[in-house]
């Protein structure tokens, strides 16, 4: 389907905090556009003070998260051809900022909570030697987690935060991924299990997998990160026998 010359309406949340409301904009589309291009076109042609974050325009920096037609996505990696196809003819495409975070202005939200939690996570602790030796298979296990671009779409989607606002009790999927990345590093010797249980509240996660579904980096947040952390907590606090069993059989706990 060609987009060139097509007129398209957008409803974009405009304004600050409580006073923000949807405002309508019409623009003409071009071939190959992504949603972020449309927001920029509106900014350039009609509304220079429209607030939006972006950097790389290639899905690498995680700056441009928003809710497009109600679905949390990166604006720079969402093709207009797809969005036009999913929007009923004649209806406007809706773009809102992420809902779980305090609203700043237009499409910009305050995501500083994620950085504050990150600061409380103990960094890696490994050998003092210069050359660290481990193989590619061991690297593979953690490299997945290190592909996180910190878009915070997972945090925005998680009901523990989005609906129940348990920001003080739960670290959120992004930072659980960070914890998993350290915990599964082949040479790390730090112990983070107590805080994974208490401060970071891994047990609040009830494995709905909503975070995994929206992750643009394709990280298996729930299965590969969170469940592994939960297992460590279970091993330590609830079930020493099961730990022995698992070491022998090398089987994972089934939930």
């Amino acid at each position, binding site marked *: 389907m060609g987009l060139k010359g097509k007129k398209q309406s957008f409803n974009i949340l405009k304004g600050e905090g409580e006073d923000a409301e949807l405002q309508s904009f019409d623009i003409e589309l071009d071939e190959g556009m992504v949603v972020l291009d449309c927001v920029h076109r509106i900014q350039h042609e009609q509304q220079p*003070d429209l607030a939006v974050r972006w*950097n790389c325009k290639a*899905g690498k920096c995680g700056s441009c998260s928003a809710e497009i037609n109600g679905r949390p996505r990166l604006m720079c990696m969402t093709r207009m051809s797809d969005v036009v196809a999913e929007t009923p003819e004649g209806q406007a495409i809706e773009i809102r900022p992420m809902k779980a975070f305090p609203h700043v202005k*237009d499409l910009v939200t305050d995501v500083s909570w994620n950085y504050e939690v990150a600061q409380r996570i103990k960094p890696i602790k490994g050998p003092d030697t210069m050359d*660290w030796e481990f193989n590619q298979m061991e690297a593979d296990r953690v490299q997945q987690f290190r592909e996180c671009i*910190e878009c915070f779409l997972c945090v925005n989607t998680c009901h523990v935060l989005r609906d129940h606002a348990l920001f003080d009790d739960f670290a959120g999927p992004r930072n659980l991924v960070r914890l998993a990345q350290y915990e599964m590093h082949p040479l790390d010797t730090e112990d983070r299990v107590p805080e994974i249980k208490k401060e970071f509240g891994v047990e609040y996660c009830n494995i709905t997998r909503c975070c995994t579904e929206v992750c643009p980096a394709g990280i298996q947040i729930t299965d590969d990160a969170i469940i592994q952390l939960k297992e460590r907590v279970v091993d330590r606090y609830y079930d020493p026998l099961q730990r022995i069993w698992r070491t022998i059989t090398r089987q994972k706990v089934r939930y």
Partner: protein
Amino acid sequence: MTEEYTKHEYDVIVIGAGGAGLRAAIEAARSGAKTAMITKSLLGKAHTVMAEGGCAAALQNADPRDGWKVHFHDTMKGSKWLADWRMAELHAKEAPDRVRELEQWGAVFDRTPNNLINQRNFGGHTFPRLAHVGDATGLELIRTLQERGIHEGIDIFMEYTVRHLLKEGDRVTGCVAYTRVDGDFHAFSAKSVVLATGGITRCWSVCSGSWEYTGDGHALALWAGAELRDMEFVQFHPTGMVWPPSVRGILVTEGVRGEGGRLTNSEGERFMFNYVPEMFASDHAETIEESDQWVEEVVSGKLATVRRPPELLTRDVVAKAINSEVKAGRGSPHGGAFLDISHRGEEAILKKLPSMHHQFKELAGVDISKEPMEVGPTAHYVMGGVRVNAETQESNVPGLYACGEVASGLHGANRLGGNSLSDLITFGKRAGEHAAKRADTLAQPGIEDAQVQSAITEMLAPLNREGGENPGLIYDEMRDMMQAKVGIIRTKEEMTEAMDDLAAFNERQAACFPGTSRKYNSGWHQALDLKNMVDVSTAATLAALTREESRGGHTRDDFPGETEAWGKIINIIYMEDGEMKVRQENVEPMRDDLGDAIKEVKSMIAERAAEQAGGGN
């Protein structure tokens, strides 16, 4: 009318939170200095996050024949012998330790079969040298430094933009910034200021850079009395995306060619074989068979016994070749060349180039494991920047340091791929260390209210106008102009026009109107950036007009080829009485022992090439 502002006091202020800024801040904090880091974006979003291919360091993991002398030689040769040899020496010697240190801070690089950091081939590097993580090495680097940095007691100011450096007599004593979110003003007193603001490539309309790349640090330095060098040298990366229009310029990593990618024209010809310069002729493959054999050997982890494909020539050469093919009517449908990696198969591509696969699939609807990409040159990196002391990274203005892309010297006329990430960590560390050392000896400077107020007045000016042009339009037109008149191929005529155009843009920017709001007003931020862009574009054009030869990232249609005389001269840009000036300086002759090192490496390469040309085994 006086505006309110918040005051802060630090020993060391680092402006920028990319690889260079983070590394500098970590070192300053570790040296005991009270350190702050200021960034226009959120933490972890700086340009560095976009770097793909890898970080160059002679670790000797992938090929034991490598070493600092070979890396030093490659960097000097790639720079067309214009790099500051002292910087190239320090870089080649120190980069390996800086990379290993990243590993201790949690970086997880791809591994060799011996469980060490793996290294890949890149253009201009004699041996496989780039430590990497698939094609997302910059992400690994910035995240590692970020995760280390937040535990070093550095105060981090996110979404603050520095617009002005405070001075006391000759020396720099702090800076003034506005917050992007609220439009509030902040004045920082500092004993040392480190610029780590990255590059200027947003001045061209086809570029691989983000909105941040408006040359803020280059301009701040110039305004504060610092000298810039090498500003005529802008690297046009040969492989940017060309289709669809909205992604034009986005980078396609050189890693694709390092992994065996082939460049062809519309006639299916591997045209790079026709563009091998004399200087590189002996160490590149002459036939498709030889080049295929090289790829086969290298990707299976063996030492190469034949010579590398011409696709891996330095970036300036490949970019100009694609440009010539398009001009000769042999371009791809959207005005580029074809780059094909599909022969490596889906599995290898998904492992080695996952983000390229994703990027083309999502943005262009192309599956690179099955079909070729269309690529063309994109403005990618500026070799020029603040002239610094090689050891300390201090500029000619006391108290003002620079590191990373905003600094200059290491890359001369052309930067080798992978030599930027290693530059950031090597010289970031040095800048932080020396900035802290200086701070140790000084008392806290005061903040002179008059300077702050005049900076604030200037920042508020666009919002106080009655009306005017949308800054976005001026921005677009100026970038198009630079692309057309100061692009890959340059002439005196066009650049003289460009100088006039820039003067006109300067007047227009001073009258634009972005609305009146101070709250997250992107138009206002852009209006302020326009001034930097005019000044750094002028610096680049002025230097380019002066250099009457073609070398590395500077190609003159009216002066083709290198001249011996210009091979010993660098251009220095500076301000005098409010006016931008350029002067020439001779490069310092290389220290004898380094000259010997170069000779040694040259003869090693010649021997090896002779062996390999014989079909080698």
